[in-house]
């Protein structure tokens, strides 16, 4: 594949094209959520889709997170393939009942009779000075729930390719799009197809340490790896991509090669996905370790507004680099 046939796409456009393609491929697919139609999507993801597909399939909803997420579940049970957009994860808490008590539980409660093929997309993440109620990273928290799948596309390719695979999945899939990534550009071949949603990816190979991350933190980890490389430390950077089910094989294999693991997660540290990953390394790769597993997470505060405070609360490139140096330097 040469560069001239590659297409430059933002993450936002990648999601939009994924929705457009799904809508064309399968007329059971429709998009609904607050301001997805006439407004064009609160992050402009669905801009232009209303014109192409009309208000029945690009369906503006009232401010009723529980109501329209539940309606999406019902529509999925009724034979449709809804993509429900919740503006951000913060507001999804108003639909937590439907997501957790209904979508995640229906198949099991019914002894396998009723699966719920719904895709729920939402923006996530902090770092934009929006203060506590607009800055949460709760994808790890959702990953606690059996019965749903939790995707966290970091790259433009995954933003483009995960949606269709999620729509083909018979069970509820939550897709978390870090709002800080929407403007990120990437090069994709025009014939880019769906991608798997069950495997983590090694985004940079290295032999000295495994940095395990996902979503926006992936790029901070990659930047840190770049800095570290100049100092002779070769960090392997893993993009989890999917938080449930967790592909532990990829990170356990990596740790077996590098003997060190650092988890970088914008979520909080207590009771978190980073704690889960750390536990799994303890359970399955303890004797491979040359140093204790470390975690770099958000400070345990509701994210503050002031820029310097928010920056201090979130994992940052310099902190990742410093922590890696400490880990590599002091042990083994």
């Amino acid at each position, binding site marked *: 594949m040469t560069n001239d046939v590659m297409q430059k796409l933002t993450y936002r456009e990648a999601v939009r094209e994924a929705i457009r393609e799904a809508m064309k491929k399968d007329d059971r697919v429709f998009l609904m959520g607050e301001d997805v139609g006439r407004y064009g999507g609160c992050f402009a993801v669905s801009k232009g889709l209303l014109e192409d597909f009309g208000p029945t399939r690009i369906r503006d909803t009232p401010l009723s997170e529980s*109501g329209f997420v539940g309606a999406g579940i019902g529509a999925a*049970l009724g034979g449709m393939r*809804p993509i429900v957009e919740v503006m951000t994860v913060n507001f999804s808490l108003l639909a937590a009942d439907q997501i957790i008590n209904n979508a995640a539980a229906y*198949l099991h409660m019914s*002894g396998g009779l*009723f699966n719920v093929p719904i895709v729920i997309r939402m923006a996530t993440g902090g770092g934009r000075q929006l203060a506590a109620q607009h800055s949460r990273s709760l994808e790890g928290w959702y990953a606690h729930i059996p*019965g749903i799948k939790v995707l966290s596309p970091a790259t433009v390719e995954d933003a483009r390719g995960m949606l269709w695979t999620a729509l083909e999945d018979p069970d509820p899939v939550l897709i978390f799009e870090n709002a800080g990534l929407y403007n990120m550009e990437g090069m994709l071949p025009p014939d880019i197809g769906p991608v798997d949603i069950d495997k983590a990816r090694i985004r940079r190979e290295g032999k000295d340490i495994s940095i395990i991350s996902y979503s926006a933190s992936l790029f901070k980890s990659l930047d840190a790896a770049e800095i570290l490389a100049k100092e002779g430390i070769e960090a392997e950077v893993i993009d989890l991509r999917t938080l449930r089910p967790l592909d532990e094989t990829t990170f356990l294999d990596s740790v077996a090669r590098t003997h060190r693991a650092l988890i970088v997660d914008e979520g909080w540290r207590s009771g978190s996905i980073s704690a889960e990953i750390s536990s799994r390394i303890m359970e399955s790769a303890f004797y491979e370790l040359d140093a204790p597993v470390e975690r770099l997470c958000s400070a345990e505060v509701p994210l503050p507004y002031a820029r310097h405070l928010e920056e201090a609360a979130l994992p940052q490139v310099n902190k990742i680099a410093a922590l890696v140096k400490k880990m590599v330097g002091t042990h083994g």
Partner: protein
Amino acid sequence: MKTKNTGKKKAAATNHNHAVHLLRSMIRIRRLEDKCAELYTTTKIRGFMHLYDGEEAIAVGVLEALTQDDAIVATYREHGHALIRGLSAGSILAEMYGKQEGCSRGRGGSMHLFDDKLRFYGGNAIVGGGLPIAVGLALADKMQQKKRVTCCFFGDGAVAEGEFHESMNLAALWKLPVLFVCENNLYAMGTALKYSQSNMDLAGKAASYDVASVAVDGMDVLAVEAAAQKATEVIRFKGEPFFLECQTYRFRAHSMYDAELYRTKAEVDEWKKRCPIATFTQRLKNEGLLSDADLEKIEGDVAQEINEAVAFAEACTWEPLEDLTRFVYSERRMS
């Protein structure tokens, strides 16, 4: 003259058959619930269990108005709805026993009865949680140009939930074929309606969302049936939602763990005089549509049905422990 006579006789026979069918349906629910209560005390059934005694006319009357294509979303007080929809008493009891031959393989219990072929979407134990699902099922029908009704049962307690209001608004806004059936038994656990609603006119609340609404005597199976028939006609014709408030009373405790401190025995007794089964039986007898022999036959048949269901549940098997984590994710891909 002759034709007319035959017609009259035919109509009378139809009336008779239909009346007996309605009565039989209500008695089937009552006897199933009696058996459930008994099995609960002998610990064959565990967990939370909510019985429907006193409210039978609603499930029976409303389900008469539905076709096999229509969908049903119910609450945790749904044994009667499931039975009348066509789930066998055996599969219902087996479910409550926790057996793998139960309608939900023993994964749901009393509060989560399901049947895909009968479009019975459960047994939802979150108060108000089923309403948005019903809205979505109707949305799917509308988008697929399927002329079907989704019928959603819920209690008076659910009317205070946000999901009720969100669902009314969505169903009216999008003109969706949902029959909302509020089983107003005046209590949400121990909280009387007057302690939970600033305005106790529940049908009026639905009307405020531009949902056509009617309140009906939920102790009168014919009244419920007629109202539901009319409601479903409107829904099918206009493709718009309808709200049916059925005013009723629960004769038993809220669940099996309820000391009933919040109401008097006198109040319960007063309502029991309006028992939908007793009053309908009397009415049919008065009108000459029911003989003692008819009644005996119904009771005999139902007793046999329930006994066979218990025997079935007893004989059913436990799902092997290796299967514990099945049905968390689908075992088949789909297209």
